[in-house]
Structures are given as structure tokens and as C-alpha cells.
């Protein structure tokens, strides 16, 4: 799953540590989410959306391959 977290963070001039502190997770977790190596849980995804004042689907984008696997 792709996400625009890095772009949104950079637009606000926040570091990964800043975002991590506000969300109550580690900086490594934010890095893993941004690089697509970890998909956050629903509660964390909602917290992220609220932090950036956007909807979840505007931040996290389901790839075509993810959609195919879900339909299989």
C-alpha cells in the first residue's frame, strides 16, 4: 500500500521524530510506514489522518496489486 505521508510531513516541515512523538509511536515505525514496509493498523491510520486533517483514503492508497490480492 502506498502513502503520501512523507510528502505531507515535508510540507509541514515536520521530522519523522515530530510525527512519531505526536502519534505515540517510534521514529522507526514512521519510517517503516513512509517506505511502505509496514501498513499501520486502523487506529494508527485514523490517528495519522486526524493529525494531518485529511481522510484516510487521501493518505493511504491501495495499489492495483493489493486490490487483486484482496479479490482473490
Amino acid at each position, binding site marked *: 500500500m502506498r502513502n503520501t505521508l512523507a510528502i505531507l510531513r515535508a510540507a509541514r516541515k515536520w521530522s519523522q521524530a515530530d510525527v512519531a512523538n505526536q502519534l505515540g*509511536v*517510534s521514529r522507526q515505525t514512521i519510517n517503516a510506514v513512509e517506505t511502505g514496509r509496514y501498513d499501520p*493498523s486502523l487506529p494508527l491510520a485514523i490517528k495519522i489522518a486526524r493529525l494531518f486533517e485529511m481522510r484516510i483514503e487521501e493518505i493511504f492508497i491501495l495499489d492495483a496489486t493489493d486490490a487483486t490480492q484482496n479479490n482473490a
Partner: protein
Amino acid sequence: MKRQRTANKNAAIVMTLLFVALLTGNLAISAPDGILDIGDIVWGGLSVAAFGGLLWSLYVSYKQSDERQQLVQLKATSLTFMIVIFGVVIAQILHALAIVSLNITVQIIVIGGILAWISLMKVVERRSN
């Protein structure tokens, strides 16, 4: 930083208990006489306290971790569990064939299991970063 200091303090306590337990264990095993004396009880108590402390440290670490770190710990723990179960089966076979004493193999499995868990944590963490 406070989390790391707590983890370091817990690790120091557990390692000290383990070290003392190992020292007293050597004395107990080197002179087995089939009689339960105060030295055996102290060694047994220290061993139980040391591993109880280890389990407590693992529990505290898990509760203080965020969701991704908890997932890493659970993955490493499940893999270690499979390795330890395999080791126990091998130990049981070796003991049944009177090749190696069960007491020795259990100690090897426990120490190996802890080392495997630490290594697997690092591998799983690296793969998720």
C-alpha cells in the same frame, strides 16, 4: 530514553541473577548427592528468580512497545518457539538413547533459545525497516 534506561536496568538485574544462578548451579551439579540441601534450594530459587525476571522484562518491553515493535517481537517469539520445540524433541530422543543427559541439553536449549530470540529480533526488525 527513559524506556531504554528501564530496559537496561531490567537487563542488568536479570543478567546478575543468571550469573549467580550459574555459579551456584555449578557447585550443586558438581557435587550431586541426591539430598536436597540449602545450596540446592538457593540455586533452584535463583534460577527461577532469574528466568522469572527475564519473562517480566520481556513483558514490560512488549507493553512499552508500539504496534510495529510488538509485531516484530511476536514474530521473533513464534519463530523461537518452533526452534525450541524442535530442540526439546531432539533432547528427548538423545536422552532416551542415553547419549546426552537431559539436564545438559535443556540448559543448552534455554541459552540457545534466548540467543536465537535476540538474533531473530534483529533480523525481523531489519526486514521491517
